[in-house]
């Protein structure tokens, strides 16, 4: 069965380039450009993976991470940010993020990261 992934990122180009990359690798994809839409998808869909940008227009990606984990403990979560911030990474880790991925990156960099965890 295909795994499902939700990409949460306010840059629509970023979002779509990633979701199309994942589709080619047999993922079922969803995308949201803000916290509100992400939360709706988390509640409505059965998701395996969340890939979440930290900075979103209507809040923090940490809120999405927390909601995802509350919905399903086994959901795998990855945070992304361009800012390197140890305390932020620690907080994300405490909330259950497996990795904090530093931007920029190429879509093909992501699969090994996800498979290694």
């Amino acid at each position: 069965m295909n795994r499902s992934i939700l990409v949460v990122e306010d840059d629509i180009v970023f979002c779509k380039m990633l979701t199309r990359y994942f589709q080619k690798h047999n993922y079922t994809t969803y995308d949201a450009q803000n916290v509100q839409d992400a939360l709706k998808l988390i509640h409505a869909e059965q998701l395996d993976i969340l890939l979440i940008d930290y900075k979103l227009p209507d809040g923090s990606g940490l809120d999405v991470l927390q909601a995802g984990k509350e919905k399903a403990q086994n959901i795998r979560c990855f945070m992304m940010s361009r800012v390197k911030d140890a305390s932020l990474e620690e907080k994300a880790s405490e909330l259950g993020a497996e990795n904090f991925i530093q931007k920029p990156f190429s879509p093909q960099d992501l699969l090994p990261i996800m498979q290694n965890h």
Partner: protein
Amino acid sequence: MKLSIAEKVHLVEKGDFEPSEHWYPRVLNSNIHPLVAYFLNLTHEQLVERYSRLSPKANKDALFEILRYQPKYFRWSGTDLMHVTNQEGNRAITVIETNSCPSGQKSMPLLDLNKEQGGYERLIAQTFKPMVDKHDAVGSLAVIYDKNPMENIGYAATIADVFDENVYLAEYKENSESVKFEDNQLYIFGGDEEGWIPIRAAFRYVTQQPWNRIPQKSKTLLVNPIEACLAGGRNKEVASQAYEDFNAKFAERGIQIFTPKTYSNVPIGDLEHLFHELGGSMVIKAPDSNAGQGVMTIVNEAELKFHLAELRAQPATHFLVQQLIHANYVQGTNPESSWYHVGSLPDKKGRTYAFDIRLMMHATEEGIRPLAAYSRKSRHPLNEPIPEGMSSWEVYGTNLSVKEEDGWSYEDQRLNLFDIRNFGQLGLGVDELIRSFVQSVMAVYAIDQHAQKMFD
């Protein structure tokens, strides 16, 4: 592709072009209609010879002059046209508007199946590259955009391939953090290590009030520069003036830009009077409107009242008014100036719809060439009564929704491809495409000449 090297900036690399990301799925699986392919391959000589058969008064030298014209500012354009007829059944193609950031590649089937970048490559290799090669400046290449990412990623990937060079793809909206002009030079933020990167040339698809952030006389080569918008590529009022100047210049040589009867710079207080003078219908256009926004069709007193109230709340005080192209014959209208939609061929239920023709063109070394074409039809048929309370826009308006413009949604029920399956439904032939092209080139010529008058 390196995603997110800075806020809404990506680095596009050679080899990033993926056809499925730059065309609608339906278009990827379509085949261009042979008549359309034939039209796109006609030489200027063939086009002139045929146009002068269709319009016997047209001077061939004048036609060559406009087809071989080398625009200074307006080198990539998209014209919206309509197929109309008068009371005597004489058909014509009328120019509705001309755009300086036209969409269309994602809706255009491949002309040559062996060239998978299609119109993207023709535009970049035949228009953008020769200009960049002649432009003596240092810096990187970029695509700046505020809409239509599907096509703009395609352009960036094509530029990377054609130039064998990485390309910055940057969203440029008001208050963008990563794009700026300084001393008329474009810079894009490439991340903390790279800092602000000077751009020597950029492909520009910035449509939302671009004059607020793109300067005139840009040192960075822009296709198209802002002058193309200001001279009529966006402003409908200025375009109307440019068309009038063109028609005066070429009147004796038998060619003219054909538009619905137009009234420029109409104060809001005069709209009601004009509505009655035009026989109880009209089209009002806000001068800087775009993508169907700010264009109103009015066919009765109730719509007039509704739109006047709406207009009074807007900052614009003067408008462009055009005679409505009627859905059906209206008794008592002026036979000299009344035009009707020919409409699409009736479907099995007998319904015929208003449609427009979007023709994208580009300036090449040989002159102006057609690049892409598609049609959009209205929601409600021309030959059925408008239900109580329905806006007349549903009958006359052909713009697809704003949603379509982001390119990721696929709302295609009103999009008519020029492919084997759909082109025939429009009832158009090669002659209508030739007329459409020549009308479009005249509009580009007119606007570019107007730009030179305004800015040189």
